[in-house]
């Protein structure tokens, strides 16, 4: 319990630090502060998908409902975080590029991540038999994962992007020490939230399993 309350206070401090302690980036001003939330959100979105994919692989190796459940709720969590990352990204885009959406490669990447999650749930809803549903959606989760590395690494190289590179400063966003501190602190904090949700879900699942057993 203690670490959860500490996490709460920790995120509160990071939030304050993001607005007060870290200076605004040159050229972008106070708006640059959104990266302390936008990037961690996107990071958790990708991380959740990765965990979902790994659990799908485990399911195919050993068909255990546990793994299927983990794959599903990670996809759910990932979908929420990805949508939030897209929204925060669009706000940032509106103020720097003038439009909410312009099919920048980075936007396209996160959009595809959202599409995969959406397609994953559509697929699940259209298979009624439990075992088939778990197996086929696991296959899809792994198969669709191919396009993630392709998009994240290859496409931005083929096209010029306006998206600021998060850490290595090449396109306008120079990060100084204070900013980096807050940035990594935020990443850590959001990963903590993810871990918390993860443990809650697992406990909830175990309760429901035992409930059925009784």
């Amino acid at each position, binding site marked *: 319990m203690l670490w959860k309350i500490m996490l709460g206070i920790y995120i509160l401090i990071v939030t304050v630090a993001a607005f007060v302690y870290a200076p605004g980036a040159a050229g972008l001003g106070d708006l640059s502060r959104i990266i302390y939330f936008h990037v961690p959100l996107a990071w958790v979105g990708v991380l959740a998908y990765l965990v979902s994919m790994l659990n799908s692989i485990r399911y195919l190796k050993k068909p255990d409902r546990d793994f299927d459940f983990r794959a599903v709720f990670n996809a759910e969590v990932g979908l929420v975080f990805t949508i939030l990352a897209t929204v925060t990204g669009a706000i940032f885009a509106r103020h720097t590029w003038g439009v909410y959406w312009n099919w920048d490669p980075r936007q396209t990447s996160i959009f595809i991540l959202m599409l995969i999650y959406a397609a994953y749930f559509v697929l699940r809803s259209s*298979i*009624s038999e439990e075992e088939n549903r778990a197996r086929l959606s696991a296959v899809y989760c792994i198969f669709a994962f191919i396009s993630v590395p392709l998009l994240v690494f290859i496409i931005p190289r083929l096209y010029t992007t306006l998206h600021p590179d998060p850490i290595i400063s090449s396109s306008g966003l120079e990060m100084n020490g204070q900013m980096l501190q807050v940035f990594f602190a935020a990443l850590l904090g959001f990963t903590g939230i993810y871990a918390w949700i993860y443990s809650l879900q697992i406990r909830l699942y175990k309760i429901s399993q035992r409930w059925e057993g009784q």
Partner: protein
Amino acid sequence: MRRLLALIKKDLTDEFRTRYAINSLLLFAVIALVMVSFATGMAGLSASLHAALLWIILFFSAMSGMGRSFAKEQEKNTAPALRLAAPPEIIFWGKLCFNTILMLALAVLVLLMYIFLLNPSIGNLPLLVLLVLLGSVCLAGASTILAAIVSMAANQGTLLPILSLPVLLPFFLVVINATQTAFQGAGFSQAAGSLLFLVSYAVVIITVSLLLFRHVWQD
């Protein structure tokens, strides 16, 4: 190898006698082409628009026909006998080859009709043809395993495009970009990067499909 040929022969014979996939593919492609041609009229389209339109037509007509071969095995309950008679990898290769043949035929026809109806200015025809053919292989490669997944689910008609789009989007970004340069008359050396990407995309996607197919192909 003989098993593979038997599978392809069986699918082709069946297809020639019913002409279900061929008809739906072709009709869909023709309708889409005529609509595009009507809508744009004689207005000269830019190369990027031509490239996008061509691939949109190819994508949706592919989606309307690709799913059939698996769906049919499932509907007619012929899948269990196949499961017993051949290992999943052979089945996958058979279906992949059949889909590729179908897709190549479709691509050639769509390309000819596209040039005929919309009269785009083509800078580098050999490159364009190569891109369309290579792209068809990629389309068939990605949609074969997805078609197998879809054949076991409900609402099959809409599911295949929904599942394929995320997987195919990186491929589309590259191929549309390259097709545009082909319309504009770029040389092969300029397109080498894209061609390499397409080949490696096809290889990766088929390899992963082969690894995963055994899990799809069971009841």
